[in-house]
């Protein structure tokens, strides 16, 4: 390898220069907190990325492993005094190594292979140069996390589960997400399965022993049982609104709304609640059919090209000169999507044809909580049944977009809701896009810690304005307790406004709004 440095390194040289390795990011990092090893900290990953950029290190499987162990929560960016844009560094590194698969797969199968290989581990541990050239280097050392159980109290025998296979991630990124129709078809299939005879057969026949006991840790059955437990409840129908919905009352704003992949299917009722809230706030809501997935998962999983294609479609769909017409804002009710869309300007900066439109689009993107906090009248937002609630800061809202106080202000204006802060409310819950699928073990440990923080508040409701967090926390409530309800902020707000006796707008309040209470298994 040349010592001249990596050919693509110029894109990140300015960011790398800012890091003076002070280490302030270490305590903010959830993976460092659990693993306490530098290569799994922001500072360590930056050192590895710098070494690749300098041409000192080949970006192989081991490098990829550390890059994909990052949850991408960006808490380190909040902690960094130098303003290092860490997220962009990791995106660069992931684009370099491609979508997860190789590394994650290595980690997943390493324990089994290592056990089989037994003492053949000898002779693998020579110089660094030797190892780097060793094929794929299924690590007997490194990788797994045997010794850390003491670090996290309350770890509940989380079995190391094989992660989502790389081919499945890549297929989803490249062939499903860019096509809203396929997203819906996949969701419909999952919904059918979740309610099917087949699932019950698998649960009874494969995932439970003769006495109904759970499968032994480390087995494939245990992994399947975990995925089965994570499978959420699906709403009766998906989000399918008309393209334009008039304001209820005089029109004050004209806003666009991203339907979202998960929000449009699993959280269709929350999307409907969002529309209702916006219309009651005097917004004409435009939901262009031409829009597509935001591309966040592609950006975070080494497929920036795919993300760019999706960004272009969305920019076009919401373009003021197009059929959509001028908009005061493009609103998003999923924090991860919003953060990605606010980055479109950066994503397309190198594309002369699109750069300007992308920057203009990004400037109009707002999280729905930011917008509602501004436009809803400075009075009570209604009443709900008395409850003690705690707020989970979605990483990509707090760290990614710097939105922390708007959602809290909204909650504080609901009568009957007592807001209690949990320790580390802006610490990642372990959902992190597809992290809970590709890094199951670390994700489980982060979730267990999060549920302890929730328990310490005595709350019976957790509010999190992001679908990934909601699904993860609902699963966490089942698996680790406490038996809390977990809801999107818009659902709580919509219920409060109903409770205050005001009329709910059309498109909400029908059958699909009857949220299932989360099952407390």
């Amino acid at each position: 390898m040349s010592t001249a440095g990596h050919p693509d390194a110029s894109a990140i040289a300015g960011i790398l220069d800012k890091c003076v390795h002070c280490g302030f990011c270490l305590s903010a990092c959830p993976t460092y907190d659990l693993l306490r090893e530098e290569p799994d900290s922001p500072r360590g990953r930056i050192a590895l990325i710098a070494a690749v950029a300098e041409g000192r290190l080949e970006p192989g499987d081991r490098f990829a492993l550390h890059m994909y162990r990052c949850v991408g929560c960006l808490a380190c960016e909040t902690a960094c005094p130098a303003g290092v844009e860490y997220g962009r560094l990791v995106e660069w590194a992931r684009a370099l190594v491609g979508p997860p698969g190789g590394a994650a797969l290595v980690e997943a199968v390493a324990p089994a292979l290592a056990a089989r290989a037994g003492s053949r581990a000898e002779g693998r541990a020579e110089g660094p140069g030797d190892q780097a050239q060793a094929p794929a280097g299924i690590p007997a050392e490194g990788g797994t996390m045997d010794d850390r159980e003491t670090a996290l109290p309350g770890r509940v025998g989380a079995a190391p589960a094989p992660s989502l296979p790389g081919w499945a991630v890549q297929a989803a990124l490249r062939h499903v997400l860019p096509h809203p129709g396929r997203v819906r078809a996949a969701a419909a299939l999952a919904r059918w399965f979740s309610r099917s005879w087949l699932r019950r057969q698998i649960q009874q026949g494969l995932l439970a022993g003769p006495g109904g006991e759970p499968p032994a840790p480390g087995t494939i059955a245990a992994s399947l049982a975990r995925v089965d437990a994570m499978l959420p409840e699906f709403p009766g129908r998906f989000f399918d609104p008309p393209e334009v919905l008039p304001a209820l009352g005089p029109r004050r704003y004209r806003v666009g709304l991203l339907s979202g992949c998960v929000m449009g299917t699993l959280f269709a009722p929350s999307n409907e609640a969002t529309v209702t809230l916006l219309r009651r706030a005097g917004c004409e809501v435009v939901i262009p059919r031409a829009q597509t997935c935001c591309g966040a998962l592609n950006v975070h999983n080494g497929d920036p090209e795919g993300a760019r294609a999706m960004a272009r479609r969305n920019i076009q769909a919401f373009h003021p000169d197009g059929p959509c017409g001028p908009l005061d804002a493009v609103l998003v009710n999923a924090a991860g999507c919003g953060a990605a869309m606010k980055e479109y300007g950066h994503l397309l900066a190198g594309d002369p044809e699109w750069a300007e439109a992308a920057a203009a689009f990004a400037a109009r993107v707002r999280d729905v909580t930011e917008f509602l906090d501004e436009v809803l009248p400075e009075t009570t937002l209604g009443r709900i049944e008395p409850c003690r609630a705690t707020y989970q800061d979605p990483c990509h809202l707090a760290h990614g977009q710097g939105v922390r106080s708007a959602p809290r202000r909204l909650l504080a204006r609901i009568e009957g809701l007592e807001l209690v802060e949990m320790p580390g409310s802006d610490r990642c819950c372990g959902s992190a896009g597809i992290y809970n699928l590709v890094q199951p073990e670390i994700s489980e440990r982060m979730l267990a810690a999060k549920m302890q923080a929730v328990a310490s508040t005595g709350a019976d409701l957790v509010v999190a304005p992001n679908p990934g967090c909601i699904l993860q926390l609902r699963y966490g409530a089942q698996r680790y307790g406490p038996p809390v309800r977990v809801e999107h902020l818009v659902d709580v707000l919509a219920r409060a406004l109903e409770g205050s006796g005001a009329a709910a707008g059309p498109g909400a309040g029908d059958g699909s709004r009857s949220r299932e209470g989360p099952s407390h298994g």
Partner: protein
Amino acid sequence: MADVADLADRADKAHSAHIAGRAGAAGAADPAFRVPFDRAGLQRELQAVLGPERVRSYPEDLIAYENDGSVFRALPDLVVFPTSTEEVASVVRVCRRYGAPVIPRGAGTGLAGGTIPVTGGVLLVTAKMNRILHVDLESRIAVVQPGLVNIDLTRAVMGQGYFYAPDPSSQLACSIGGNVANNSGGVHTLSYGVTTNHVLGLTAVLPDGEVVRLGAAAPDAPGLDLVGLFVGSEGTLGIVTEVVVRLMRRREAVRTFLAVFESVRAAGQTVSDIIASGLVPQALEMIDDVTIQAVEPAVGAGIPMDCGAALLIELEGLADGFDAQEAVIRRVCAANGARWVRVAEDPADRDRLWAARKGAFGALGRLAPNYLVQDAVVPRSRLPEVLDEIRAIAARYGLQVANVFHAGDGNLHPNLLFDVRKPGEIQRVLAAGEEIVRLCIDAGGTISGEHGLGIEKNAYLEWLFSPETLDVMKAVKTAFDPERLMNPEKLLPSPVSCSEFTAKMAPEVLAEMGLWV
């Protein structure tokens, strides 16, 4: 003293042999400082002790551990993660048998290169030894493992109204073990003292693998003060594996001031005048104009970007006395032409002000890719002139200097900003740094307040102490570590000090270290 001379002599001889042996055995492809040993054999034996997963040699692991908070870097041969005193002792014994250096490392936030494995060897990382073993609030003590992050101790006891006093700026990240190694201070050192004032006892693994308990859970243990000797020894005498620390009761009230001045000199004079007035605030910190350009955009503490310097002043104690003390502070500030003085409005405001101070080093990354920070202490009465002279020195070398420091203690932190990739720049920075150190010594000061000497300032010890005094230090080192395997070449004068070492950081040398894979 004959024994001391003898020990010192033996140390010198061993040292010469050491260096010579390295140069001879290592051959042309290896930088002269690296100590040769049977790495594969050592790795196998260490894996037998710790298991394969806590003994690492992947290039990714080594590269992630080649840096600390300083400007230096060097690759370890192996990185190990023990979790108990017994494991540390086993690692040390095995390494000794192989003749491999052992370099202890906590959180790697040090600023003087104290954890940089310049000789190669085994980097012993205590980050997984981060438990609080015991808390006794009645006796106001806690027993902790060395890898515990400083702030985590205070967080664990603050609910009961206690805190751990030493609060280095890096307290969110740095480890108690690292604080012990460097005798770290903090922004409240002015009234609470440094780490050594808060450590009652230690468990340590000596370089021969023996485990000793020093001091006691009660203050003022009899016999030689080996705790005092260990605190600040930068891991050169052994590895601390448990620390008995004093906890303090949280004060009733706190009042924090931000005072803004037109010049560094006026702020420096204010510091001298406040101390001369007889008032000793709990903290008295200065941030100069250059530093403000870095921290204000990072934190938004409300410090005017066009001012010359800002002082952070904090009172802690009984609220009753605060008004009289505030009057003194305001009077002195006004007399020195302060633009304005304000009191932190609430805890969040106070946190922001302290974030501006504590995040300053990291924030300098906004101004330049690298910085070299000095840590000299000068008599407070000389602050204004020394600050002026430091600026003059930096200007002479064509460098920018950012001052952010413990003004109340006279503990300076001039940061020379630079870009290590620009040819000749590191040499100019080191030369300017030396002049600054000379200046501070000539002003009646000393070379390091709290950061330790590491490989950055170890050579300067010779400017400060007589050969006889240095002989005593060398003799102590030899008494503990005759084979010079415990964090070698640090703290005491050595051929491996920063200028020599950085000369060997050239890319082609790094390539020869086996890095270019």
